[in-house]
């Protein structure tokens, strides 16, 4: 198990790279979806007769 996390001695570089990638991509998806929902909701209010 600890061998798995050690990644042949390169764990200190490999795990952060996965972490940063997941974090940045995930945050971008979240921000994008949230902005879309907000714009859609705002327009729905404005277009209501």
């Amino acid at each position, binding site marked *: 198990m600890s061998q798995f996390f050690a*990644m*042949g*001695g*390169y764990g200190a*570089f*490999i795990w*952060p*790279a*996965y972490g*940063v*990638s997941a974090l*940045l*991509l995930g945050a*971008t*998806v979240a921000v*994008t*979806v949230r*902005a*879309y929902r907000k*714009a*859609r909701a*705002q*327009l729905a209010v*404005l*277009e209501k007769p």
Partner: protein
Amino acid sequence: MFAFANPKRFMDASSAFLPWLVVATVLTLGAGVVLGFLAPPDYQQGDTVKLMFLHVPAAWSAMMVYGLLALTSLFSLVWRHPLSDVAAKAAAPLGAMFTVLGLITGALWGRPMWGAYWVWDARLTSFLLLLFIYLGYIALWSAVEDEVRAARAAAILALLGAVNLPVIEFSVDWWNTLHQGESIARAGGPRISAVFLWPLALSALGYTLLFFTLWTVRIRTEILERRARSILLGGAA
């Protein structure tokens, strides 16, 4: 191309293809990440070869996005079509994000393999410049109040910045760089083993499709926001 270049038609078409794009993104990105993670250690690089499947797709996407940003900017300057402005504007933050990701994963790969997180070599420096061009582009959009003028100024900046793209691409040939040369798209075929090539191809496709998904959603967002703004302005007049 032009059938698409109409906000109303774009909204209709994109709501039809977006679900498929999401499915394709999830499948390719998932497969790429899993296969990349399970790839055997390289005989020279050991387990750090896993970093290739994170770094190369991010860096590739950063450059592809800039290419599309320059292309849509050209459309906007030549044909003055509002949707191409929207498309260019919507692409920029995504491109900047991929550039940051390319830089960070590159640094984390550079440290164990080269002994340094950062070196001022031609590839790394021109790639850092790409980030500054993206940031400048985004700043320009928010600095100019008038939308039409902002779009024109930003489009011109985008085209000027496009000069940097071939510099990044060929930097490894033109200068003596620490960064390795092209090993995929080269005459004589890819120079990496199939066990690495497949996960890399899937990851790159996954990142690319992720970009197109997010780009589509961001363009839709901008169209909705502009529609809301015009209603508000119309109401005030």
